[in-house]
């Protein structure tokens, strides 16, 4: 069955503001086995970018432009944004 062949999900990762400056890139991609959650991605991202460690407590995550929690499930082609505390206004 195709479901069995395609159980890997690929997501796009975006970094903004201070988080982008810390990792040095605006965008990255990440692959993992399904099922996966925001927590799966966070763990991998923090492991890949040590310079992001200072943001461990303050980063918010949006999945497909909606605020998400660690438990939010992610699917193939999702866009996961790492957002430092906002400071508009």
């Amino acid at each position, binding site marked *: 069955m195709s479901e069995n062949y395609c159980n890997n999900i690929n997501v796009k990762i975006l970094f903004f*503001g*201070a988080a982008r400056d810390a990792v040095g890139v605006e965008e990255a991609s990440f692959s993992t086995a399904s099922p996966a959650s925001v927590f799966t991605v966070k763990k991998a991202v923090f492991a890949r970018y040590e310079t992001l460690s200072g943001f461990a407590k303050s980063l918010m995550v949006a999945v497909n432009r909606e605020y998400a929690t660690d438990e939010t499930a992610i699917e193939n082609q999702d866009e996961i*944004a790492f957002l*430092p*505390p*906002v400071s508009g206004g």
Partner: protein
Amino acid sequence: MRKDTDFFELTREPLDVGAITRRVVPATCGATVVLDGYVRQWTSGKETLHLIYEAFEPMALAEMQKLSVGARGQFEIAHIGIIHRLGKLEIGETSVVIAVAAPHRKAAFAACEWLIRELKRSVPIWKKEFYADGSAWADGENVIGAE
């Protein structure tokens, strides 16, 4: 809940507060309350030279529209306009305008105050401040002790 006359924009051009204010005026309302946020020169004794604002633009616009739904759920308001500027801003330039028109001004004041507070909490926009001796991304208003 969103009205066609509402507007939510991000722009890299200077903001004309008067013109923006007038865009939310319906014929049955007598007053608009406007929050005009701008680049302040002095913060806690430190001088800012200029600022750069950046946004996760599609999400910022979506969050602004969500705020309008939240505002309409709580306050009897006619029209809402929110425009945030992005890019480099000089001292004294307007960074954000929130204009609210309502049949009764009490609701307009309450909604405008609620909207700026929530915008600072949830809309993905970031401010980088440039000083004589460096630059820094601003802490958000979620930080304990911030207004």
